[in-house]
């Protein structure tokens, strides 16, 4: 079984994503940083890496995209994991004892309703699993932690309340990174980074780059701009589209993009993953038209 590296300490959401995708028996390697995951895979300490790239509510992990630009690992798969927040505390502590709750700013913001209902003071921290580990090592009777159910299990904390997040559509998308490209799937997605030729100061450069995809009826699933570090007020574009670069239309679009862009880096082609519908029991006929992506 391959060793899979992840950022954070045991019990992190990225580790849950590894267990969800590869199975509970998968050996994992915790890394101190996002860079650490790249280092582990490049040095052969781990075969694969699992990195969060985007949350459906709060957006991207910008550092991951910067690293995908700087380093040369390939995206082998995308994993979508529902994020469920669990309130945990030292053994014996009840909800009534709590005064403060520690977690990441994102988690605290998403559980705001719950916290205000019980009058709990949010305390921001760097990561969820790390907060749980700290609480387990140094139990405090008035402190709770919001994190992963896995973290509660790993550090022997009591679960006081499960699924305290306000939003049902809370998913995080992870990338599985490795050295090689996966075999082509029935439905693939491709991720790339490109820069437009701003030196020319021509209006419409980005429009024409994207037009290469639009003209060929290729669906873009994500586009994001990030500042370019070597030039102020210049940007890089991160783009995902449906399709595999070897499909004729995608190949032609990429060639077109290469001609127009200042550079293009292909991050990988990987099987496209479906996101579950949280309310699948409700048969909403009106919404079916919106979800015609299933018309296979």
């Amino acid at each position, binding site marked *: 079984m391959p060793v899979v590296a992840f950022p954070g300490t045991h019990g992190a959401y990225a580790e849950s994503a590894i267990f*969800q*995708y*590869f*199975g509970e028996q998968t050996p994992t390697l915790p890394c101190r940083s996002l860079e650490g995951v790249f280092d582990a895979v490049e040095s052969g300490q781990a075969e694969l890496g699992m990195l969060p790239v985007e949350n459906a509510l709060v957006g991207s992990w910008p550092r991951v995209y910067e690293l995908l630009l700087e380093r040369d690992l390939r995206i082998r*798969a995308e*994993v*979508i*994991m529902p994020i469920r927040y669990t309130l945990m505390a030292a053994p014996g502590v009840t909800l009534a004892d709590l005064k403060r709750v520690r977690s990441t700013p994102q988690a605290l913001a998403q559980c705001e309703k719950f916290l205000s209902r019980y009058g709990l003071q949010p305390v921001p921290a760097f990561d969820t699993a790390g907060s749980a580990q700290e609480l387990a090592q140094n139990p405090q009777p008035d402190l709770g932690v919001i994190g992963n159910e896995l973290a509660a299990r790993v550090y022997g904390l009591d679960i006081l309340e499960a699924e305290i997040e306000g939003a049902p559509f809370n998913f995080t998308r992870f990338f599985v990174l490795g050295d090689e490209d996966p*075999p*082509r*799937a*029935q439905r*693939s997605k491709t991720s790339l980074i490109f820069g437009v030729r701003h030196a020319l100061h021509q209006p419409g450069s980005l429009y024409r780059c994207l037009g290469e995809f639009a003209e060929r009826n290729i669906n873009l699933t994500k586009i994001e701009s990030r500042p370019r570090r070597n030039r102020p007020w210049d940007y890089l574009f991160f783009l995902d589209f449906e399709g*595999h670069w*070897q*499909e004729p239309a995608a190949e032609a679009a990429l060639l077109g993009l290469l001609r127009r862009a200042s550079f293009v880096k292909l991050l990988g082609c990987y*099987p496209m*993953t*479906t*996101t*579950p*519908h949280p309310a*699948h*029991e409700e*048969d909403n006929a009106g919404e*079916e038209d919106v*979800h*015609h992506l*299933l*018309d*296979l």
Partner: protein
Amino acid sequence: MIILMQPDATPFQVDNVLAFVQSKGWQTCVTRSSGQTVIGLQGNGQPLDPFYIGQMPGVADTMEVTERYKLASRAFRPTSTTFTVRGVTVGGNGLTIIAGPCSVESRAQLLETAHAVREAGAHMLRGGAFKPRTSPYSFQGLGEKGLELLAEARAATGLPIVTEVMSPHKVALVAIYADVLQIGARNMQNFDLLNAVGEAQRPVLLKRGPSATVEDLLMAAEYILAHGNDRIMLCERGIRTFDNRFTRNSFDVNAIPVLKQLTHLPVIADPSHATGVRRYVQPVALAAIAAGADGLLVEVHPHPEQALSDGDQSLTPEEFARLVAAVRQMAAAVERSVG
């Protein structure tokens, strides 16, 4: 595993099943057959509990695929695969006839043959540029020059071209010219070549090795399918048995209905290599169509007595025209058509 959805399953329900199995590391292959969605799982995901999946909303049934050739199996894809090559449909009710010389010898020979087989009703042109020969001293083919001539013949006749590729590093070169990449019988289990052709995403004509079982052939196709390339024709071309006194090989007519049952891929018959004798080509071709083959691969040479390879089994253009006429009658008898 294969998951059969109920006929009235909603897109949401299908999505949720897809999301669940994908989250467990599986790749999915979705097909719709007579109104029912079938989800095939491929790759190396985690073990799944069929009872849990059977309980998911919209799921009718789950099946384990016990065959080793998963993607090639009918269970995985119940409807027969059809695809087009430059407008020529392969699979389905119509028969596909591929004809041409064993090897490309000269411009005149190829163009003459190409026009003649098109007149007679062939849908595609075959011709070898790189020839796998038993003896290293036999004619080895014209190489890239042969590919150029094939491309010229295509331009002149409009017939898509089928030509053999023998080594993985030549796949890119041959793919520039060819519409269908042929994997010869001797290379059926050249797994590097199968992977390279799978990755090239071109239609493939995969010939059964002379001592390969039907399952071996399906496993070879599985290599190509694993790259997401499902435009594959399987070709029965005769196998080696104890008796090669009067024919080159023994045509395994059994293999045709067996393959049609086991796999969704189209099955082509090659009566020329199967018999190795001109006068037996037509009877065996008719037997193959009667047995359910989706097409034929026939060697035709304008002057078989001058052919540099396989002259004994090549039909003249006139003989080929008679064969096509006979095939039309046989096709009508088994309710197939010849476009």
